[in-house]
């Protein structure tokens, strides 16, 4: 075990862990919010992420016409281009997530189908999307243009404050703050919380359950779309199965934080990102997965509802 990295690369690993962890956190919202209202895992969320990365690529290359070797953009053009692609990716993922809800969940729910049926239908949608994209792209990885030049603001004890790293930290934090306020303060947000506490009582209070569930999928899709945009802008590549590892990581983050809990997803994502970075640096990258899942099992042994599981029972925020 190499402890010297803690002193030599501590701030660098913290910065990178935050950036990676917050991408995980955004995707984990797609799992945790749906679980909150339906008590079901939305297995198609990993493929919503995958479609988001391809939507980003499609918008940049085919709609805006940038080639993989196009020069980076600057000034206002850079800002509006990134904002446009960011919104496009979020809309694509939100629409897909709502479609997943209609196809895989709503009808089965209306017919009082077994909960496992919904679970399997979501897995079916996930596999159909994955294999469809495999056929379309003949499994080839794709590179996106470097629209955002990776310039640095400076270094702090070896941590490089690069623009893309900061974007991967700041944008998710803003999204979380807005979403947290929305869920706790707005009428619609309160409806989501009410449904997550008791569907029956919510019905009696006149809440339109289907509308709330669709809204929840929509929000999960929007945050997953934001994650897909950030991922593609930072790593500049995608492939048909990009959602698989991301889905496992995000689901792990949701469970680590306490699934069903918005703030749990946030802190669970950060904890996972940090854990991966420090495990890779101290033990070697080959030990990353072993370390992460060992820690997850140990945490669940002592806190079966995840790090913020108790808060779930009380507030669902």
């Amino acid at each position, binding site marked *: 075990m190499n402890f010297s*990295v803690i002193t*030599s*690369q501590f701030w660098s690993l913290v910065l990178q862990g935050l950036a990676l962890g917050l991408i995980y956190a955004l995707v984990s919202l797609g799992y945790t919010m749906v679980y909150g209202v339906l008590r079901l895992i939305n297995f198609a969320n990993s493929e919503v992420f995958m479609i988001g990365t391809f939507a980003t690529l499609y918008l940049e290359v085919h709609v805006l016409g940038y080639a993989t*070797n196009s020069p980076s953009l600057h000034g206002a053009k850079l800002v509006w281009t990134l904002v446009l692609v960011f919104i496009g990716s979020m809309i694509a993922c939100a629409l897909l997530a709502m479609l997943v809800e209609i196809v895989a969940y709503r009808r089965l729910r209306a017919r009082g189908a077994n909960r496992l049926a919904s679970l399997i239908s979501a897995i079916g949608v996930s596999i159909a999307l994955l294999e469809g994209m495999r056929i379309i792209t003949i499994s080839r990885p794709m*590179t996106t243009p470097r629209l955002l030049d990776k310039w640095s603001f400076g270094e702090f004890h070896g941590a490089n404050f*690069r623009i893309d790293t900061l974007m991967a930290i700041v944008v998710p934090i803003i999204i979380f703050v807005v979403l947290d306020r929305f869920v706790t303060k707005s009428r619609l947000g309160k409806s989501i919380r009410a449904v997550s506490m008791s569907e029956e009582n919510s019905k009696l209070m006149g809440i339109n359950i289907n509308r709330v569930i669709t809204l929840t999928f929509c929000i999960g899709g929007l945050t997953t779309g934001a994650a897909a945009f950030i991922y593609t802008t930072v790593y500049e590549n995608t492939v048909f199965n990009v959602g698989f590892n991301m889905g496992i990581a995000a689901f792990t983050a949701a469970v680590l934080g306490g699934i069903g809990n918005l703030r749990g997803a946030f802190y669970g994502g950060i904890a996972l990102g940090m854990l991966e*970075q420090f495990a*890779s640096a101290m033990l070697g*990258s*080959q030990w990353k997965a072993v370390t992460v899942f060992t820690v997850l099992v140990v945490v669940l042994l002592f806190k079966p509802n995840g790090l913020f599981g108790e808060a779930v029972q009380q507030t669902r925020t």
Partner: protein
Amino acid sequence: MNKKIVSGLAIAAAATLALGVVATSPASAAAKTSVSLAFEGPLTGPDAQLGQDQIPGAIYAIALYNAKNPKVKVNLVKADSQCDGTVAANVAPGVAANKAVIGVIGTSCSGEARASFPAFKAAGLTMIAPSASAVSLTNPKAPDRGFPVFHRVVAHDGFQAPALARYAAKGVASPKFYIIDDMTTYGGPLAKGSIPQAKKLGDVVGTDSVPKGTADYTSVASKVKASGANVVIYGGYTTDAAKLFKALRDGGYKGILASGDGTNTSDFPALAGSAAEGVRLTAADVPFDSILSKAQLAEFTKITGIKVPGLYSTTAYNATNIFLDCITKGATTRSAIQLCVTNGSWTGAGGETIKFDRYGDIIGGAPVGGYLVKNGVIIYDSVA
């Protein structure tokens, strides 16, 4: 049991055996008017370019052969195992079950080869690999060796690994190596095999093993930068090499980047973008366009649709020609092909002699070439 029944069964068994022998005898086989060779390698998937660069060599050789109106025409069967052992384990039995296939040009990757061995050994199907270079595949003591069906027309990583370290450090005054592998059958041994040579040339300041398919290489980039390394060697395939090299350059690493033939595919510069510039690559291959005359190159382009032959199209061409020569000599069954390939001797496209040792390697090995990425194109530089 009744003696009459026993003797009756014995006669029936003997007759069946005799008929079986007749059915597979050379005289019967000679009556064949067409046979198939299979190309097994990655044709789709993240590492598809490796196979897509090679298969034109096989297509070209077979087209030239069939154009001579031989007695036995040859068809090419494509088997896409995606440079993935799990996929290959499912694909190989299908190839083996196709009775028309009498030889396999492949596999491209070492993991695919290892996973294909059980099916091909059971079927007696001879393989000649254009680029599967892991040492263990022909190591008589290794449990995953391909004997007796496996052969390869490429120098194994016992030659490539030290050459990679040499070429990576070429012109570097005091090389400090950081050696990374992708934990595959190919990448792991290639990277680790370069360590002894690296230690002779300078210092090895760090090593890491990052599973193939990893998305985020930032922690590796931090470690490399903090180590003070000025030469990074990666044992792995194109897609991951592109991600790693981008992360290293974005993380501020300014030293040499080098990798082996798994990364030496024509799509590498596009995938790695500006990080590809100056990357040093090796391969136990002589560029096909340096061997072909202008007229031959035009003919190659006309047949395959490829303007510039990719890496290992030469070895794929050589592997195919060995099978075609055996077929010309009358070997049209799997067993006859195995006998011919094991004992024959040929001249490769570059004029070199190809003869296999008992475990499937070319006797005497083969030179390893050094390649550079310049202006977004991989060019041959010198012997590594």
